């Protein structure tokens, strides 16, 4: 029995997760049409970029970044305008740069100007609202019959899977670059900054610069997500960023159900898995007849419940204890 015991225990421990995964897959298989299954996966891949960005600010730097709603729309605005004017690839690249710049602004507000992190995010987000409208010139733009990076790839990857392949390639490149960066000296310094700032400064690392860098990368990813999404859906809306922070947080929290190890690799995998799982849960809920107006309420409830769970558990535990005492 001896050496087998750990494996056996591991399976027992993983069982609830396996059941969740299998149940989800069965639900997907039996209730959704194939086009919905694939469409949901495509969206999941695009929104994985958003989750990765929020993973950097919330999990690695451990600072809440509320500018996300603004930078997502910034990506949408830059991308949709360039695609509308015939250069979709340029739109994606510029969106990444613009997101990074916006992230730097939040970072500088927090570090150099001593603005509270939450307020700094709100300031950037609010400023971006005007900037985004200025870039887009009107509240929404359709890319109907315009070239996007998706339509450009249609001939290469075929009619059925081109959207899936393009999204997957971009996500793969982004997450690989992110993984490699986090293993460099600069990346390790960034991780340490969120982990223990005292130690970082005592190790001759400029923690302010690391935070600004972190916010730049985080918002570049969020903006990339917006840029991809607008070309994916062939439409750009100046309100598309609303609630994206909570959506990203919900994705991360869901992902952490599946991956409990706190390494960089698992963190990235967890954000991606969570973003995809979130889309399937949403698609399933809408399949059951949930009004699409409720999607944001839905993600808000997921985040609130997940964060409140430890407190709820404690409350239940305390009540149970009291009852068992009274019974005696």
């Amino acid at each position, binding site marked *: 029995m001896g050496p087998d015991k750990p494996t056996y225990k591991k399976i027992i421990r993983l069982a609830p997760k396996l059941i969740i995964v299998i149940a989800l897959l069965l639900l997907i298989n039996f209730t959704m049409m194939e086009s919905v299954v694939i469409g949901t996966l495509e969206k999941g891949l695009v929104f994985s970029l958003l989750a990765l960005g929020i993973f950097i600010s919330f999990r690695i730097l451990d600072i809440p970044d509320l500018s996300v709603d603004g930078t997502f729309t910034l990506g949408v605005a830059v991308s949709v305008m360039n695609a509308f004017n015939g250069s979709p690839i340029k739109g994606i690249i510029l969106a990444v740069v613009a997101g990074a710049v916006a992230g730097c602004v939040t970072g500088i507000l927090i570090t150099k100007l001593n603005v509270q992190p939450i307020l700094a995010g709100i300031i950037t987000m609010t400023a971006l609202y005007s900037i985004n409208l200025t870039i887009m010139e009107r509240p929404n733009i359709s890319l109907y019959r315009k070239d996007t990076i998706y339509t450009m790839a249609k001939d290469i990857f075929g009619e059925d899977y081109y959207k899936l392949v393009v999204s997957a390639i971009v996500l793969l490149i982004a997450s690989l670059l992110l993984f490699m*960066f986090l*293993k*460099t*000296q*600069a*990346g*390790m*310094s960034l*991780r*340490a900054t969120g*982990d*223990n700032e*005292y*130690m*970082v*400064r*005592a*190790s*001759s*690392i*400029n*923690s302010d610069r690391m935070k600004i860098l972190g916010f730049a990368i985080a918002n570049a990813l969020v903006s990339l997500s917006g840029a991809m999404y607008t070309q994916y859906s062939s439409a750009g809306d100046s309100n598309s960023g609303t609630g994206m922070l909570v959506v990203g947080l919900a994705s991360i929290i869901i992902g952490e159900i599946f991956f409990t190890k*706190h390494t960089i690799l698992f963190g990235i995998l967890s954000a991606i898995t969570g973003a995809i799982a979130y889309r399937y849960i949403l698609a399933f809920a809408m399949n059951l007849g949930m009004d699409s107006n409720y999607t944001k309420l839905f993600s808000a409830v997921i985040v609130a419940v997940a964060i409140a769970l430890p407190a709820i558990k404690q409350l239940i535990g305390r009540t149970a204890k009291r009852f068992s005492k009274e019974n005696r």
Partner: protein
Amino acid sequence: MLKLENVSITFNKGTVNEKKALDNVSLTVEDGDFITVIGSNGAGKSTLMNAVSGTYEIDKGKIFLDDKNITRLKEYQRARFIGRLFQDPLRGTAPNMTIEENLGLAYSRGKRRSLNIGIKRKDLNLFREKLSELGLGLEDRMKTPVGLLSGGQRQALTLLMATIVTPKLLLLDEHTAALDPKTAAKVMEITEKIVKENNITTLMITHNVSNALAYGNRTIVLSQGRLAFALEGEQRKNMTVEGLMKLYSDNAGDAFTDKMLLD
């Protein structure tokens, strides 16, 4: 060589809580000196360390390290040549990163953090060798997150991190005070070994009077933000704990706190 010239720090200036934490302190630490610092609570020991490391900006005076004026350098800039240990063992290491990642960060002290790979293969051998010198078995746990280590292990690791690139100056702020007596003795032993082997100029705050006499070559006593007196040479060699206590109450105006006596 570290030189402090008339360094003063006042907290809460202009309020009722105004407190002169350092009052015109001048001090010269020669290369290779191992100075122990004692004094009662609030005497300015930690403030002295924080002034040297750059955590606090000083109000008046100048600080030189090897004839270079570092008074205006920021904390992280001074950290290129100053290694530091805190009383709290949790402060010196990043808990969610592995032992080798923590050492990798420390090993690039003073260099620009580039896009080069964080931990090179050839560095790993050096890390393993240095860890085995600590005698705590950490060399077999290089991929363990530091958060899983005990306080003593973390403090020993911090000591290694602070000295893996030999600093010009090592600041130890009661780095064994939060550890149990046995672990504290072990960490002190490692400290002395590393300091001696690399001939590192060291300032060590301690609450433990016998430690203050047993280690190092000079002892300075702070009281109310001033240097009360210093002990060195023959006088220090022949000094007993009781003798130092008496000297202190004669010279420093306030008595040793109970905490110091108990230690």
